[in-house]
């Protein structure tokens, strides 16, 4: 492999990479774009809509054309800008959106149809039924998109990290470095971030003897010595509220294998002050075929020559409306190229052209021609007369657009700078300032485009031409937002970085108004596209939701249960034995509880200790039942209402001591209940003398239930256990425990609470005692069977947030004195109108009842309710269920159909009371 043919001083190529399976050499520090230019590769990509041949236009992140897919497998990154990708050994890059190959792309035939495919053509055709549109859409979807979709999971990780600084400087060009240095010297903690791989910015294009490489290095060292932090390959991509910024840092180049397994890091930065030294982006010029390989931005040409030692063309024409482009002529001459002419659209200029370079004023390019790979001819109107040159490069400069994206993301306004024909950062309410070229762009003079509008491209990637903008105007899409949406201008991966101002100028021209009157679009995060995995961080693997683990996890896991998610918790669903199915295991476990004894982990229940002289007063605001009359050592069922009167949680309340209560409520509502209690205590009733402490995780809880539970527990604690709804303290296996004689299953039962760190011996002792009597641990499915048969409601099932205490048959328990939250809401008239959804029981008249099935009346029609929980009589068998039914309380004995069309199950059912087992509660007595 030889040195690149376009390299100014050959040699030094040490890195090899492939592009479309051809191996090339590059110099360390080359971008892919520089390396391809050095190797004489002109055609790099195809455009989105018409598949037009495209090369490299820019040298920075604004590049609209040269997009490639880099990397392989799960690391492949489609749509990567060749100008923002530093070549590494073994890099694999591929072109996109071309078939069968980049050179011979059959998609380019679409270009022939382009006269019939103007902006928004799809709104005007493809009518007929939706299914017909889907057939057209199938084709459109395959033609659209750029890179191939990835199919593999990402092998790399992404980190997210917080950071704080006094001063953030964005952009390490000369202005940014000076600002960072000054801030650091003044004692501020500084961060300087630069999206490039090196510091210096424009200095690599336009050297300054006072800011040479040594100065850059010394400045960086000084900033670091003063405690500052300098991050390269780091883009300030989002500027949010209160000076919070998201910085995206590449720890490895796209597609490369990262050293520590982390491909990128997202910085969540809070800055005291933000200094934006973000520079400018050069404006292209519209003319016929201005999108061809060989038409480049003048500043980019200078960058390739001076920074990368690559000469993108040897016979060059320069077209500009400003002085800056003259410097490109100088750089090209230095590098040995021939500059055929400078076409200056202005009528005069004071800029100095290098000796021998002709400057033609009032000159505008009209069209270029060449092959898909390179340019051969440039034609211009010079003082309204056509003139042509044989040239292989046209360097263009239509002026400069300040990079005001972050300023605008921050909520800042833009001001119009007439001299530069550009919007510059204006006022902002965040502590943010813009400096350098972005604040003070080079003057440039507007010039009317001279080419054919249809082939004069504005948004290169999306193939939006001047003609498309004109059509949108003609059809009334005149607001800039309508224009963008109608033509797709500015919607491509470059988000209009090179096209927005050109389009706005055209809009202003058509409307005979000034550019600021024509409008302005809003810049939103991110500044440049951000890898999704980075925004997900560690959450990409756990959906940003850690699993919560039970204190008794190891003991359950040893039994190999089927685990069941419940919120973020995982609880044993059933402890299947041998070849048992889940349903068989659940029924066996439930029968064990009905006939002998079982134990289950109830640790996840919400638990609060409420203590102090006003503890009962607080609880009587939160709970809709009476609490203060509860004797010490006793407990009772309770439920809580929202302000609108709907039941939102239930549980038990226990008087542990004279002024200390334990309140339990549902697992799923634990966080909500914690917040609710705190709100009531601190916001509504700050004067109460009460302490509320969340002890959900402090106690592990084990329910021990069944006809043998009381006897077995007596054996373990050496005394008679507390009677139903009483509590006692005891010791099991040497561990102090709190015994609450409560039953969810309908059997004589206890909830046994031990400090979670000491709960394992308690479980072991209870399990051993149970198993000696033929009992066993039971899981959530058995618990569900037991509670359905008993008719206990559950939050998320019967308690669905739309039911009142009366709907659930709980109204007799309401605190008659009122004063609880929800008492006002319950007074609303519609809550006592007939026909409300009410809780009932159902018995199947044969077959199974599908949980969730709709209840249909004898006469058919719309559903009148649904099955909230389906189970079976644990001992006798036979399908039963709890259900919501319109006017249900008055419909006992009625026969209905429980229909589940999605599962093909239809069952005849009879409405009964929602208590199938021991309705008198006799089994609670010893």
């Amino acid at each position, binding site marked *: 492999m030889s040195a690149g043919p376009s390299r100014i001083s050959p040699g030094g190529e040490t890195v090899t990479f492939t592009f479309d399976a051809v191996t090339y050499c590059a110099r360390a520090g080359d971008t892919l774009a520089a390396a391809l230019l050095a190797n004489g590769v002109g055609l790099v990509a195809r455009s989105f809509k018409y598949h037009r041949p495209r090369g490299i236009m820019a040298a920075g992140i604004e590049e609209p054309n040269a997009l490639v897919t880099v990397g392989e497998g799960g690391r492949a990154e489609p749509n990567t800008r060749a100008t923002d990708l530093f070549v590494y050994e073994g890099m694999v890059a591929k072109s996109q959106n071309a078939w069968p190959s980049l050179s011979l792309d059959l998609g380019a035939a679409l270009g022939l149809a382009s006269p019939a495919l103007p902006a928004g053509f799809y709104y005007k055709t493809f009518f007929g039924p939706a299914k017909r549109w889907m057939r057209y859409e199938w084709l459109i979807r395959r033609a659209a998109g750029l890179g191939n979709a990835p199919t593999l999971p990402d092998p790399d990780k992404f980190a997210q990290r917080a950071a704080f600084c006094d001063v953030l400087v964005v952009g390490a060009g000369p202005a940014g470095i000076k600002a960072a240095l000054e801030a650091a010297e003044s004692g501020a903690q500084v961060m300087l971030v630069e999206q490039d791989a090196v510091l210096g910015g424009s200095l690599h294009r336009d050297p300054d003897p006072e800011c040479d490489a040594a100065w850059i290095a010394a400045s960086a060292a000084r900033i670091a010595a003063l405690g500052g932090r300098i991050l390269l390959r780091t883009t300030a991509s989002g500027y949010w509220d209160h000076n919070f910024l998201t910085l995206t840092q590449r720890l490895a180049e796209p597609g490369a294998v990262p050293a520590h397994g982390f491909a990128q890091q997202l910085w969540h930065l809070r800055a005291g002050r933000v200094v934006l030294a973000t520079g400018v982006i050069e404006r292209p010029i519209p003319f016929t075929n201005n999108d061809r390989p060989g038409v480049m931005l003048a500043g980019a040409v200078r960058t390739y020559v001076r920074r990368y030692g690559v000469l993108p063309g040897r016979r060059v024409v320069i077209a500009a409306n400003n002085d800056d482009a003259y410097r490109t002529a100088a750089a090209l001459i230095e590098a040995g190229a021939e500059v055929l002419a400078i076409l200056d659209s202005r009528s005069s200029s004071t800029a100095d052209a290098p000796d021998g370079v002709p400057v033609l004023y009032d000159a505008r390019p009209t069209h270029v021609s060449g092959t898909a790979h390179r340019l051969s001819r440039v034609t211009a109107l010079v003082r309204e007369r056509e003139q042509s040159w044989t040239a292989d490069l046209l360097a263009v400069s239509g002026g400069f657009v300040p990079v005001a994206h972050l300023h605008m993301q921050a909520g800042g306004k833009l001001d119009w700078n007439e001299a530069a024909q550009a919007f510059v950062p204006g006022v902002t309410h965040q502590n943010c300032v813009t400096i350098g070229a972005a604040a003070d762009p080079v003057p440039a003079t507007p010039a009317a485009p001279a080419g054919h509008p*249809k082939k004069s491209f504005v948004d290169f990637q999306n193939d939006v031409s001047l*003609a498309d903008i004109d059509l949108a105007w003609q059809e*009334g899409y005149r607001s800039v937002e309508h224009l963008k949406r109608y033509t797709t201008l500015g919607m491509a991966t470059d988000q209009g970085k090179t096209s927005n101002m050109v389009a706005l100028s055209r809009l202003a021209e058509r409307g005979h108004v000034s550019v600021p009157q024509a409008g302005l679009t809003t810049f939103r995060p991110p500044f440049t596209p951000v890898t999704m995995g980075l925004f997900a961080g560690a959450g990409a693997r756990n959906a940003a939701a850690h699993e919560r683990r039970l204190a008794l996890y190891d003991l359950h896991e040893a039994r190999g249960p089927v685990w069941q998610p419940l919120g973020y918790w995982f609880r044993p669903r059933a402890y299947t034995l041998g070849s048992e199915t889940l349903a068989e295991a659940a029924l066996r476990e439930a029968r064990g509880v009905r006939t002998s004894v079982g134990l289950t982990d109830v640790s996840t229940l919400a638990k609060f200790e409420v203590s102090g002289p006003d503890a009962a007063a607080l609880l009587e605001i939160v709970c809709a039942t009476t609490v203060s009359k509860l004797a010490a050592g006793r407990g009772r069922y309770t439920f809580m209402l929202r302000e609108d009167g709907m039941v939102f949680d239930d549980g038990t309340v226990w008087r542990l001591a004279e002024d200390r209560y334990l309140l339990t409520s549902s697992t799923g509502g634990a966080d909500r209940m914690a917040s609710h209690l705190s709100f009531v205590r601190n916001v509504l009733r700050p004067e109460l003398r009460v302490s509320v402490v969340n002890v959900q995780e402090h106690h592990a809880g084990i329910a021990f239930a069944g006809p043998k539970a009381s006897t077995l527990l007596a054996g373990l604690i050496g005394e008679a256990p507390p009677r139903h709804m009483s509590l006692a303290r005891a010791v099991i296996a040497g561990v102090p425990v709190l015994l609450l004689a409560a039953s969810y299953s309908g059997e004589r039962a206890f909830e046994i609470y031990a400090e979670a760190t000491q709960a394992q011996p308690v479980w072991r002792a209870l399990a051993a005692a149970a198993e000696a009597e033929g009992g066993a641990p039971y899981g959530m499915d058995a618990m569900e069977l037991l509670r359905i048969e008993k008719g206990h409601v559950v939050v998320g099932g019967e308690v669905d947030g739309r039911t009142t205490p009366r709907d659930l048959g709980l109204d007799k328990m309401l605190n008659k004195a009122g004063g609880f939250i929800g008492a006002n809401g319950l007074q609303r008239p519609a809550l006592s109108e007939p026909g409300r959804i009410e809780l009932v029981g159902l018995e199947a008249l044969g077959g199974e009842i599908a949980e969730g099935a709709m209840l249909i009346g004898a006469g058919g029609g719309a559903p009148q309710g649904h099955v909230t929980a389906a189970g079976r009589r644990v001992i006798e068998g036979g399908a039963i269920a709890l259900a919501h039914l319109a006017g249900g309380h008055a419909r006992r004995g009625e026969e209905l159909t429980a229909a589940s069309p999605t599962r093909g199950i239809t069952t005849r059912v009879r409405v009964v009371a929602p208590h199938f087992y021991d309705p008198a509660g006799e089994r609670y007595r010893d």
Partner: protein
Amino acid sequence: MNRYSVFGLMRGALGGQKHWQPAWRDPEPRASYDVVIIGGGGHGLATAYYLAKVHGVRNVAVLEKSWIGGGNTGRNTTLVRSNYRLAPLHNLFDFGLKMWEHLSDELNYNVMFSPRGAMFLGHSDADMTMLAQRGDALRCDGIDAELLTRDEVAKVEPLIDMSRTARFPIEGALMQPRGGTARHDAVAWGYARAADVLGVDIIQKCEVTGFVRDGADGSGAVVGVETTRGRIGAGRVGICVAGHSGQVAGLAGLKLPIESQTLQAVVTEGVKPMVNSSVMSQSLHCYVSQSDKGGIVMGGDPDNWPSYARRGQPTVIETAIAQTIAIMPALSRLRMLRTWSGVTDMSFDGAPIIGPTPVRNLFINGGWCYGGFKATPASGWTYAHTLATGAAHPLNAPFALDRFVRGATVDETGVGPMPNHR
């Protein structure tokens, strides 16, 4: 007006497409209208269209303070479906879904309704039971819903992580085959063009700054609006301004059960097809689909505190993206191209508010939360009925403003009056 057709485009190919006329006029406001609709989003424009088309009320103005379709119509994630659990909701939305199926022809404007299927993933047996319940409710009311097995889910979306060890493993899904996506801007533009043809005045850059009331103390019926382009008389006035409902109703002294919050959305760079349907998750709160241009469109929970600023909070999207990648890991290396926000009108039961206000001749259509786009045709149709007749349409009757103090809320998620808990 030119009729849109493939022949028109062919003809234009020869003449540089110079024959197309403006899609809608740019009229000066008249002194008064029979009906003034405040808000030129999809809902307002659809209302105007159906007022003219169905009720023959053509002396109608749509007043838009900015440019039409620039609010939530142009900012949503374009999902269209009707698969709500509660009957008043699914009846209304399915009425709309049936209209979507013919909307392009109706408007002679391709709104690109693409019924590629709307799929709710279930991550546990409990999820699947809830989904079955929803599906059963739909099917019993004649609306399509199918339970999909794991294998069927994998067939529709091969890139979903089907491993049992996934943090939120896939147990199946509820699919509404008739659901899908549409082109949001086209809905506003299509209704605008069709309404314009029927004589409706669409007046952009016209902000309503107050109401003109009759009665000695100015507290009587609304008889017109004050605007930045002068006073405009009106027989009836319909508010239809989504996130700005509270502000506009406030001009008439009303306080609504609505809080405005920010909802963010995200789109990636375009790639070739990889997501075939609209995928939503029952346990997580993310949704994802792919646009015809190839961008993957995603969203999650709202920034659930009040804001009108259309400036989002980054960690909210970080969570939504994390959830989406956990479901579809191949999305990791795609790049987020753009984020944007809308101001959502979060009502206090999650359902819309359509109907009269306590002020005579003033009506409201709002509170669509983050789900209004798919209702556009149904919202317009029923609101037009209400504005034309002064009475509720059977489909919007359950959504009257007084339902909150009466206790007749339509609370799909059952979380009650705090929108940030939803």
